[in-house]
């Protein structure tokens, strides 16, 4: 039941973000699908005890890959699909807790939480970059193969 609620809410949230960024109507459902896939990867990995950093890297990697596939298929910029998918992964909760501890003068736990939030935002970036690198390698190899022929 909890998983079904997660699937539905992550789909709606990502599609709603597409709408707020004024993405074309036809891409809202696809953006929602990308966001749903990413969030479900993250959620399932975290629920089964994997480190949040590793789950974030994996989820953002898959979000970027699916977005790139969609972008090739529908001949649109990648950003339309990837943006809505990335947003749920942003460590809003951790950043909030860190800020709250700062305000309450508990600097030790605040720095602790802030460092974790920073690590997770870094791992979103790593996942994005990793898929970009693979994309470049594939593009490069197909180009050189075409040139050889």
């Amino acid at each position, binding site marked *: 039941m909890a998983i079904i609620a997660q699937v539905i809410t992550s789909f709606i949230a990502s599609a709603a973000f597409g709408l707020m960024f004024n993405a074309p109507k036809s891409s809202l459902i696809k953006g929602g699908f990308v966001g749903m896939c990413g*969030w479900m990867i993250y959620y399932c990995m975290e629920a089964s005890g994997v480190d949040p950093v590793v789950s974030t890297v994996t989820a953002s990697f898959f979000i970027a890959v699916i977005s790139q596939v969609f972008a090739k298929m529908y001949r649109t*910029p990648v950003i339309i699909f990837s943006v809505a998918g990335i*947003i749920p992964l942003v460590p809003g*909760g951790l950043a909030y807790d860190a*800020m709250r501890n700062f305000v309450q003068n508990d600097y030790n736990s605040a720095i602790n939480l802030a460092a974790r939030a920073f690590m997770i935002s870094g791992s979103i*970036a790593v996942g*994005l970059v990793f898929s970009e690198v693979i994309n470049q390698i594939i593009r490069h190899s197909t180009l050189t193969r075409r040139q050889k022929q």
Partner: protein
Amino acid sequence: MENQSSYTYDVIQVCLLAGKVMLQNGGETYRVEDTMTRIADACGATNSNSYVTPTGIFFSLEGPEPSKTQLIRISERTTDLDKVTKVNSISRRISSGDLSIQNAHIELDRLDKMTERYTFSKQLIAAAIASGCFLIMFQGSWNDFVPAVLAGGGGFFSVNFFNRLVPIKFFSEFLASFVIGLLAVFFVSTGLGEQLDKIIIGSVMPLVPGLLITNAVRDLMAGHLISGLSKGAEAFLTAFAIGAGIAIVVSFL
């Protein structure tokens, strides 16, 4: 000679206009450069150089006659992915030869002036519902769903409202997150909501600079160091403004 010269200026104009529309509406820097180079290539000007930052574009074309350079200033940036997609398809049509440079100029001009967005009320509803959904995704209880929807909607409404009053983006984001904090405290104290933290986290999500973060990373990796860093700074300032607004509410609890 005279004709050739004015043709080159036309090409520069079209390239710059395409770049401007893309950059103003949230396109990545490397995509802007790529689009401009492609358009120039398609028009026979293979030797073009561009320098794109979030606040301005330089573009120069070299040819048989002396090289020409123009600059365009970007003062306002919003997010409108529909326009980015449309510029992208216009540049594809120019590359494939379906669209002449004069017609492209007319179409881009129309696109630049067009304000065909989703209505504000639709976006408000989307932001409100997204807040509620984020609450559930972050393990909140369904009892807090309605308070999060209302607080998130209130936050999105106030960010737009304050933006019209004071045209400083960070200040309106600060005030909006302050409003979210107040609404959340109000709902919890009247017994409508249960967990203050979850309601605040969920409703703040529509303000989170997700597009800036992704763009900053992609720009940095593509080698556009200045754009990447300045977008990162903008994202950091936005996050800081949101955090400060909430912090004020929390510290008075």
